[in-house]
Structures are given as C-alpha cells and as structure tokens.
C-alpha cells in the first residue's frame, strides 16, 4: 500500500541498493561472464566464430608455442609471489614490529614507510626505470662512484636481473601496506597479555614467536591473500617497466602481460586472439579464486579469537 511507512521504507532501501547492484552487474559481473563465454568460441580477428568447447583452453595449456609461454609466465608469477612474500610481507612484518616497539625515529619512519604506497604505480614504474637506467641511473652511478663499477649492470636488459629488478621495485612501492596492517594488528594486542609475557621472558624472539605472531594472524590472512591475488594479477608495473612483451626474451613475462598480449595483440609483433586470451583470463580467474579461497580458509582456521 503506497503511503504506508513500511512500503516507503522498502522503496527507499530498494532505491539505495539497486544502483550499486546494477553498477556491479554491468561493470563486474557482465564482463566476467562474457569473458567466460568468449573463451568457448573461435575468433576470426574480432568476429566471433563457431562454438568450440574447450579447444581454446586446450590450446593455451597443451599446444605449442602457447604451452611453453603459459608455463613460463606462470612460473614467473609463482616466483614473484614467493619473493614478495619475503621482501614485502616479511620485511613489512619486521618494519611493523620496529615501529610498534617505538624505536628512535618511529614517528618519522611510520610516514616514510607508507609514503610510496600512495604513489601511483605509473610514477613508481617510471621512477625505478630511471633509477635502473644503465648509463645515468642512480643505481649504476652509485656503484661506480663507490668503486663497485664492476657490479653495474643493465638491470632491466638481462634475463637474470630484470624480473628481480621488478620485484624489488614492487616491494619498495608496496612494503608500507603490510607494515600498516601488521602494525594495526599489533596495536590491538591487549596490554595485559604483553605484561604477562614480560614476567616470563625478556627475549624478543620468544615474544614475537609465541605471542605477537599468533595474535596478528588475522592481519596475516589479509596481507597474504591480497599478495597472492596481487602477484597473479601483476600487470601495471611490468607493463610500464619492461613493456607488454616481457622483455628481454620473455624473462619478465607474467600472466597479466601474456593474457593482454594474446587477447589484444602486440602492436610490434603479433596478432590478436580473443579466444585464447579469454581462455587465459578464465584460467587465471579460476586459479586465483580457488587458491585464494583455500588460503583464506586455512589461515582463518589458525586465527585466535581474543
């Protein structure tokens, strides 16, 4: 009955919910579903051809040259994930602990550590490209200036160093995020517990291992899951620093670049293939969703409710 307060309230709630739902449906759900659908068709350039079932999936996983490319990119993503787990989350935890213990200069460092996080990836990418410039980059110039010229390298041009250069740039950029999350977790640890521990031991190591680490488990769940998703969706930084080809000779190729190149083509090299590209996108999506689900589930299980 219009006019009744209950109906008006319902209308009001509907009016609030429908626009964001429609937005999500149009810009998130629909593209994902259409990518799923695209993956099952053959594509002639831009025109959709006949339904081919799982042929595109088979192609990107088991036929050459795609199989090698997929494995190569996937291996790099795995490496990136584990390296960042140490360099970003590990260092983030240590930094958070130092900040929490209020070592001298903590107030300054709290800001300094978080500052790069607010920079856009584009800026960080170009900045690090300049740092690593073989002739004028601050890295090589510092090495030469300190008599270590022999260590100066064309960092982004060598298969052995390029991916690591990207990983370090990413860790520098994002280390403030896990730091902040861990710090917030540590600050939530009740002081009674800390006082009780102080009666038992003076060792920082025991404190970290037995008390702090278990109690920041919810924070760890968050940063681990986000790092996993981020590592397997990694795109912007490599795109800016080494280009869509995963240069040099695919030594920095990751799934994001590989998918983009396959679906939309590479202006300076290859054609576009929406079928194979969509199949890759679907595989990446399913893989991330499954593993992230398992990680969250497992990590949740070890969280302690205070």
């Amino acid at each position: 009955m219009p006019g009744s307060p209950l109906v008006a309230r319902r209308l009001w709630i509907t009016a609030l919910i429908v626009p964001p739902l429609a937005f999500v449906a149009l810009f998130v759900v629909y593209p994902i579903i259409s990518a799923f659908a695209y993956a099952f068709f053959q594509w002639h350039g831009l025109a959709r051809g006949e339904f081919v079932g799982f042929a595109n999936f088979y192609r990107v996983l088991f036929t050459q040259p795609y199989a090698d490319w997929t494995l190569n990119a996937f291996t790099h993503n795995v490496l990136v994930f584990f390296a960042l787990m140490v360099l970003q989350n590990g260092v983030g935890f240590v930094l958070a602990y130092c900040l929490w213990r209020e070592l001298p200069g903590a107030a300054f460092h709290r800001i300094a550590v978080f500052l790069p996080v607010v920079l856009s990836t584009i800026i960080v990418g170009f900045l690090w490209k300049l740092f690593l410039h073989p002739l004028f980059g601050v890295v090589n110039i510092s090495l030469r200036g300190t008599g270590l010229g022999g260590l100066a390298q064309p960092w982004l041009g060598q298969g052995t160093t390029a991916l690591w250069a990207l990983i370090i740039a990413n860790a520098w950029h994002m280390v403030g995020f896990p730091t902040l999350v861990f710090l917030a977790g540590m600050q939530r640890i009740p002081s009674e517990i800390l006082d009780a521990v102080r009666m038992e031991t003076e060792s920082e190591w025991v404190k970290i291992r037995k008390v702090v680490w278990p109690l920041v488990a919810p924070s760890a769940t968050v940063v681990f899951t986000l790092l996993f998703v981020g590592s397997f969706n990694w795109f912007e930084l490599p795109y800016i620093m080494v280009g869509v080809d995963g240069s040099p000779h695919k030594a920095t190729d990751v799934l994001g670049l590989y998918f983009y190149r396959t679906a939309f083509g590479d202006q300076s090299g290859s054609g576009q293939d929406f079928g194979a590209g969509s199949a890759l996108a679907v595989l990446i999506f399913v893989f991330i969703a499954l593993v992230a689900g398992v990680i969250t589930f497992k990590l949740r299980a070890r969280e302690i409710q205070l």
Partner: protein
Amino acid sequence: MKKLVSSTIIALGALATALPAMAQELTFWSWRQEDKAQYQKFISAFETKNPGITVKFETFEATNYNTILSTALAGGSGPDLMFARAYGGLENVANAGYLLPLDKTNVPALEKFAPAAVAAETARSSKITYAVPFASQTMLVIYNKDIFDKNGLKEPETFDELVKASEKLKAAGIMPFGNGTATAWQNEVMVGGIASTVMGRGFYDDLMAGKADFTDKRYIEALTKLKEITKYFPDGFIGLDYASSQQLFASGMAGMFVGGSYELSNFKKQNPAIKMGIFAMPGLKAGDEKLVAQYFDGGYAVNAKTTKKEAALKFVNFLASQEFGQMFADDLNNISAVPGVNFKEPLLGEVAELNKHSIPYIMLVHFRYGEPSGSVLLQGEIQKLFGGKATPEEVGKNLTTGLAAWYAPFKK
C-alpha cells in the same frame, strides 16, 4: 487537394536530394597523436573543397590503438574512417568484415600505387584491398653530420670502414651508436637496419622461394656481423630503452643511430639544430649492394558499417590523391605511398633514393600471419643473442623451428 499532394511530394523530394548535401560529420581515428596539427591542416584543405562534409580527427595512444579500435568495432560503434595497420595487423580487423573493400571503382587512384604498397593493405587469402596505404618506412643508419665532420669521417663504404669510424668516435669520447635494445621491437629494427646488406637480396629471394630458411649461412653471417657491431653500442645497451636511446642521438651524445626513417622528423623535433645524414649499411666488400629494409606502415580504411559511405569514400579518395601525398610528405616528413610525390626535404629524397635498393623488412612483411609470429620470435632471440644467451646459429635454428609451427615451407 491534388496540388497540395504533388507539391508535398516535390518538397519531400527536394529535401531528400538536399539531405546528403547537408553537413555530415565523419569521425577519423588515428594512432598518430604527434601528427594531430598536420592532419587538421590536411582536413581543412579537404573541407574547403567539399563543403558540407566535416572530418573529426581523433587520436589514441599508439600501443593501445588496436585494443581501442577492436573493442569499438566489435561493439558496433567505431569511427567512419580509421588508420589501419598493414600486413597481419590489417587482417585482424579486415577478415572480421569491419572494413569496406576498396578497389579501382571506388578509389581509382589505387591502381597507380606501387604493388608492394597495395599488397601491404590487402588480405592475402581474399586478395581484397581494405585501405589506402599512407607511408613506407625504411630501416637504415642515421648519422650526425657535425660529429662526422668534426672527426673527419665519411659515410662508410665497407663494414671495416664502419668499424674504423666507430673506433675513432669511441676514442674521441663519443658513443658511436646510440641504440639500446631493452624495448623488444628495437631488436627487430637492428636486424633490418644492420643485417639486411650482409644477408643480401639473394638470401631474401631464396627465403621467399622456399629454398632457404633462417639457418642459411648468409643469415647466420648477417647475425654474426650484427653482434659484432653492438660492440660500439652504449655500455649496458641491452638495458637501455627506446626513448633513452633516441635521446642519446638527438642530444648529440652518439654519432649514429640505427632506426627507421620515421626517426628523422622525430630527431629534428627534439633538436632542431641537429644536422643528419643517412646511409645504408655497407657490405663486407666495397662492391656489395647496400640494402635497406622497407615496409609499409598502414593505411586509411573505411568502416564497412558507416552510414555516410559516400562522404567517407570522398575523403578516402582525397587521401589517395597526389595533392594529399605532397602535403603528407612536406608536413609530416614521411615517405608518402602516393606515387609521384616530390620530396622537398633533402633527407626524404635520399630515403626515397635508398629505397631503390631495398628488401622488405622480413618478419613484419612476411611472418606476422601466425603464432608465434616471426617478429615476436626474432625480438626475443636477438635479445638472447645480445645478452650472450644464444649464438647466431642457435638464433637461426630457433627462428626456423618456431616458425615451422605455421609456416608451411619450413615444415619438414
């Protein structure tokens, strides 16, 4: 009453004939952001001659152009007219039926274009031409005339002379070459600009005839010489990206630059004072034919679904005219594909002269029709070669076996 009906019909008829003459706006998409001002000029020349048609020129970032265009066309929108890529890149869009076929009935001028130019904008299987080619590009060596004069150097006639000239520049504290190869496609440019002469026309002809593949000793020798010359590239050149390498040459820190003819106007823009010369890579012996590598860049195409076909064709015919070709060459400093254009800029004239001794830019022209594309393979393999991860023989072998996946003559 009858009178009213007939006069209404007449009035409607008049309106109908007047309709096409009413202002029509064509949209025209391009990846050449840097040429926007020049294109506006070309367009106003067209508009003054064709009142009632206006052309709106819109540009997109070159690396994302394909993506944006593909998405728009697939979504049923898209421009009336557009820049189309050449060779394999054209087929991506054309084979999907998004482009209007062009021939001598709707664009008569196409008949006079060079066959190689038209072939670049023609789908291989159907033999249908989809775009009016706009420019050719040539891979060659650009040098800084002032630096050469100051060090008493001339354009080299043999490979050894080039090595000597490079040594001399190095001794004088100048980088002989400014090139870097961290940007993948630059590796392909190095092969086109440096290795074409040594591999030679004979190799190219045999390759096309199916009598040779990339393990041929002429190709291997060309790659060996290519690797040798990189001794005179900047320190750490494998980590030097394209933009930085351009700056090294434009700023006068490097004496030579291996690149496309498109770099000439670029360098001039970055450093108006620079005096440049060009040469084709010399051969091992003084008499060897010096070769550059040539390809066609792209073309102007019409959307098959445009509602303003007549106006769009009028504009495309203008883009195929000598008047346009001349403006294109004069204002954009590019080698127009329109036949019979005179090059006022002496360097462009020289490029046109060098083009008389050229072979196609092999991977782009012939090997971008399957996966893995020859360009992708070559770019990666040359990065391995320069990084010390592969020998010329291994590169030749990997190219051949890689392409054998789809290139029939290599399947054994």
